[in-house]
């Protein structure tokens, strides 16, 4: 125990320098990193180049990057989600309709997004099934999304609708015309996990991945990304410091982004079968 205290002290000491010595921190972390007193969270943030080595710049840097992330949520989820309800009718025009074969059609973009979203959804739901953490409600949900007064299409609702639609299509193809209402109902029930106004931790992870893929379309979503972001988000969202918890979503996004810059080649779909992908 004394040993542990000494190590904790060493970490705190290292993290409170004016300029952190990256090499020494790496060496310390190598033999384990205590989670107490935000040590693990801060070490990961520094080593993933999210926090600068100059500790006096931390506050400004965090503030800027957290705002930038929220801006992305607004642009990629909140605004499109609101627009869908506003312009419900203008969406279906002669030039652009759901069966438009043009790859640049807004609709085909919408379907492509949904396909990607369904895969992310599947992978996030079963994220670390042995931990109840990801199924539990976060104390820091996205306020604009869970506030049901605002008519915003959440990712959750989008997944529900997409699942229902794709079921209908299947039935049409096999020639059965009678819709099985009971089955549809069950699908809806499956997705109502938490009360209105609540959001599970896995849903936050889902949002981070959705935003990441929207911002990195050349890379795309590859299964396994969920396994990488999971531990990062868990570490920040279960930190003892409420500020760290409250910003776990934005912080995880940036740490994940920085981590991907180093391991990207293992996560590029169209490279899977080439020499630099994992398919080889």
């Amino acid at each position: 125990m004394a040993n542990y205290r000494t190590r904790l002290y060493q970490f705190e000491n290292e993290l409170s320098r004016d300029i952190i010595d990256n090499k020494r921190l790496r060496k310390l972390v190598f033999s384990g990193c205590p989670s107490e007193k935000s040590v693990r969270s801060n070490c990961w943030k520094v080593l993933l180049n999210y926090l600068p080595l100059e500790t006096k710049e931390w506050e400004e840097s965090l503030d800027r990057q957290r705002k930038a992330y929220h801006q992305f949520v607004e642009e990629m989820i909140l605004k499109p989600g609101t627009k869908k309800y506003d312009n419900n009718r203008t969406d279906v025009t002669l030039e652009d309709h759901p069966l438009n074969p043009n790859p640049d059609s807004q609709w085909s973009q919408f379907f492509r997004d949904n396909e990607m979203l369904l895969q992310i959804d599947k992978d996030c739901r079963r994220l670390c099934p042995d931990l109840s953490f990801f199924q539990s409600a976060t104390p820091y949900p996205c306020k604009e999304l869970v506030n049901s007064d605002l008519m915003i299409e959440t990712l959750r609702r989008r997944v529900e609708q997409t699942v229902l639609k794709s079921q209908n299509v299947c039935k049409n193809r096999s020639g059965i015309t009678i819709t099985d209402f009971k089955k549809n109902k069950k699908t809806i029930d499956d997705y109502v996990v938490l009360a209105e106004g609540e959001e599970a931790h896995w849903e936050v992870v889902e949002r981070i991945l959705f935003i990441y893929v929207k911002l990195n379309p050349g890379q795309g979503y590859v299964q396994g990304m969920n396994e990488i972001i999971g531990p990062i988000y868990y570490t920040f969202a279960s930190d003892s410091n409420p500020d760290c918890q409250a910003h776990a979503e934005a912080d995880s996004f940036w740490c994940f982004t920085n981590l991907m810059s180093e391991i990207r080649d293992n996560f590029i779909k169209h490279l899977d079968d080439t020499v630099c992908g994992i398919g080889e």
Partner: protein
Amino acid sequence: MSYAYLFKYIIIGDTGVGKSCLLLQFTDKRFQPVHDLTIGVEFGARMITIDGKQIKLQIWDTAGQESFRSITRSYYRGAAGALLVYDITRRDTFNHLTTWLEDARQHSSSNMVIMLIGNKSDLEARRDVKKEEGEAFAREHGLIFMETSAKTAANVEEAFINTAKEIYQKIQDGVFDINNEANGIKIGPQHSLTNPGMSSSSGGGNQSSGCC
């Protein structure tokens, strides 16, 4: 198709200068007249031949808009070549070059080959930046320079290929450590010296392959 080398490129520069159009012209040989604002970072690839060797170019096309800068920066790492593009009809895009260059130098490998491109050379009547100014900037900062048109395809092939030639030359001269993947270069499958199953980590260090 197998190749001798893979080079990674990144295309940077202000929004609207024609980065995505240059890539489209290079990979698909067509021109897109409307501005499809790039969100984040897109991808393109094409095979070229240099010195009788097949070289695969893996190209990241970044968004010029300021709000995506923090995302696009995460693509500098591991790029062997950069195309830094300005629009010859908009002086402000030329004035911002220094900022782009600083950003690139700060976040990339020091050996990265940078090609400066003055795009939209077909719009001679609206020219706002003289060709000599582009040449002078390139000379001062040690870059290669070309004027291109993504619309007429003038010099587009040359811009991508000359950058590759420069990288290839640097490999021949031993400037690039081809075993260090952070340099944005990879040796193709048939050129790999070790067990092909291990090729993603065939470089000396062996620490880079994160999977399985």
